[in-house]
């Protein structure tokens, strides 16, 4: 059996993203905006090697990079970078990088450390419903995480403006309307796709095991995350998303997502 030996592209990606994350935090300390431009350039470089790594998985295993934790973590990190770069160029929101870059480094480092064997798809894993479940869930998670990052920025800026005290990121965070728009749209899109992904998973489980769920950590995490994200969306609709309660629910959603990701291929 071939093993996932984290190749040069993966190590390079981790190193480059780590440099980018270091640069954005350094820019916070030195207040030098130039460092953020270097960080963006670094992330673009990291994205190239990251794409090579994703391509390597696909060409080696002949299936999408979804079937175990290293693959899914790498793919999720890749999606996050795609969305982050897209939003960066569209809205010039550098501040989201403070959340997204470290998360990307953690996900890729997880892929390198776990180093599970490649999982050639079993016949049941080759089913379209299963692949659809994994793909939709990961895309949904990426959009929801971006929504959480922008929501966190919104809360920070809202509090800074209310308290009339400028936080460290004040100048680099865009206006509240953009933050609200990006956060809300990412949440709506992410929630819809994530729900479809979970539904596909339930269908797959029912077809395969004759039960809707096996109450594994992964499944419970996904369920808690779904409920938490639904609550956050509801708070957006009712106009109460600025509250501390919503911030707490967002934290729960994030932790539940982490549990569900780490539960991939582990029951």
């Amino acid at each position, binding site marked *: 059996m071939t093993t996932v030996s984290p190749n040069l592209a993966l190590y390079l990606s981790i190193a480059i993203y780590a440099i980018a994350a270091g640069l954005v935090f350094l820019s916070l300390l030195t207040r030098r905006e130039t460092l953020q431009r270097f960080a963006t350039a670094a992330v673009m470089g990291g994205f190239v090697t990251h794409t090579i790594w994703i391509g390597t998985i696909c060409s080696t295993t002949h299936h999408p990079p979804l079937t175990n934790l290293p693959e899914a973590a790498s793919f999720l990190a890749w999606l996050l970078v795609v969305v982050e770069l897209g939003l960066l160029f569209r809205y010039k929101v550098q501040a989201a990088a403070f959340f997204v870059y470290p998360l990307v480094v953690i996900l890729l480092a997880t892929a390198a450390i776990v180093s599970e064997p490649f999982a050639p798809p079993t016949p049941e894993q080759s089913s379209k419903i299963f692949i659809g479940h994994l793909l939709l869930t990961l895309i949904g998670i990426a959009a929801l995480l971006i929504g959480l990052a922008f929501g966190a920025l919104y809360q920070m*800026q809202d509090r800074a403006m*209310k308290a*009339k005290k400028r936080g460290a990121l004040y100048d680099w965070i865009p*206006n*509240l*309307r953009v933050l609200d728009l990006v956060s809300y749209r990412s949440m709506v899109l992410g929630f819809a796709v994530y729900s479809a992904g979970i539904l596909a998973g339930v269908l797959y489980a029912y077809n395969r095991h004759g039960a809707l769920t096996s109450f594994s950590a992964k499944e419970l995490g996904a369920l808690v995350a779904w409920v938490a994200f639904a609550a956050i969306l509801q708070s957006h609709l009712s*106009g109460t998303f*600025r*509250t501390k309660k919503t911030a707490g629910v967002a934290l729960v959603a994030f932790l539940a997502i982490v549990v569900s990701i780490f539960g991939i291929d582990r029951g």
Partner: protein
Amino acid sequence: MTLTLIGVNHRTAPVELRERLSISKGSEADVLRPLCSNGGIRGSAVISTCNRVEIVVSSESDNIIEPVVELLAERAGREPESIEKHLYVLRHRDAIRHMFRVASGLDSMVIGEPQIGGQVRDSYQIAKNLDTLDSTLYALYEQTLHVAKRVRTETGIGEHAVSIPFAAVELAKKIFGELSGLRALLVGAGEMGELTAEHLKGNGLDSIVVANRAFDKAVELAGRFGGTAAAFDTVGEQLAQADIVIVSTAAPNYTVTAEQVSAAMNERRRGDIFLIDLSVPRNIDPAIADIEGAYLYNIDDLSEVAEANKAKRLEKAGQADRIIEKEVDAFLKRLATQDAVPTIVELQRRLEDIRQAELEKCLRRMGPVTAEQRQAIEALTTGIINKVAHYPIIRLRESASAPHEGETIRETIRKIFGLR
């Protein structure tokens, strides 16, 4: 060519003297033409704003201060001695640095203010139209405008608002982004309120509703802003439609209450509201700050924002000065090279004249030659003069960056080769 800048500004001269020295639009020719008719002065330009009157001249000698001071004193109706103590005279490097700093807003009363850039551009245009710029002043102005643009882009020195109305605009943009499509409610007719509304309108705000106890005044103000007037007792109802509320009245109690804003927020369902209280005593209930989606700033809060931004601009000024110092060095080098060019061209022409004359003499003595032979002789003689000119030209170029040494070398080479 030497550059000299002579002038007064808000730090060196009182307003009484500045207004006497000021050169009004359309009368620049009365100053620049007489200066350019002075033998030593090759070009001149003037920058005259409410904070400064400066004359920059390009000359062959350093001895041009007296006529400039006399001209300024004559215009001010004073004796030259009485204005001298207020004047600063900056030579070459200092003059260039000063021009760059002025155009970048670093020498302004409010650091980083953008108007001065346009005023320097106007002064360039006027001198250009009057044909009082020589090549050195042309180059100086072009470079000055380039440096000012670079400083503003790279440091963002003018980005932070340093006045109360601009601070309000900056905060509104931090909440709503673009102001187009927004609606403001101006309550009262206080001067600061009017000014703030004017700035918001200038930054894209769509509509303004003015409510005032004296309805006539509300109608007059609304007319000025292209908005509508509303009765003072409808303020509560107007809040539900307003994105920005500016209150500036002399009322001794709260004109906008927390209950009114809460009701307005419920009616709106979504969307933030930015309330600006410019009144003393305060006219907006401070409890409004606790309502979700309501951002309340009073006059002290806005002053603090403006003060914090001033400190930021000072920080950026240091960064700007470092850029300017590098630009001054580069420009001096360019000017010096420009000074060396006439000597280099003249030297090449002189040697070519010698070559041509000697070649003619030689060919006459030799009698008929074939085309190939003539070509060979041409190549030989051209090669010789190029070799002779090579080191002097290299030295002229190398010494260009050191003004005094460059002048000595240019003089020596001109003497040795008998150049004019």
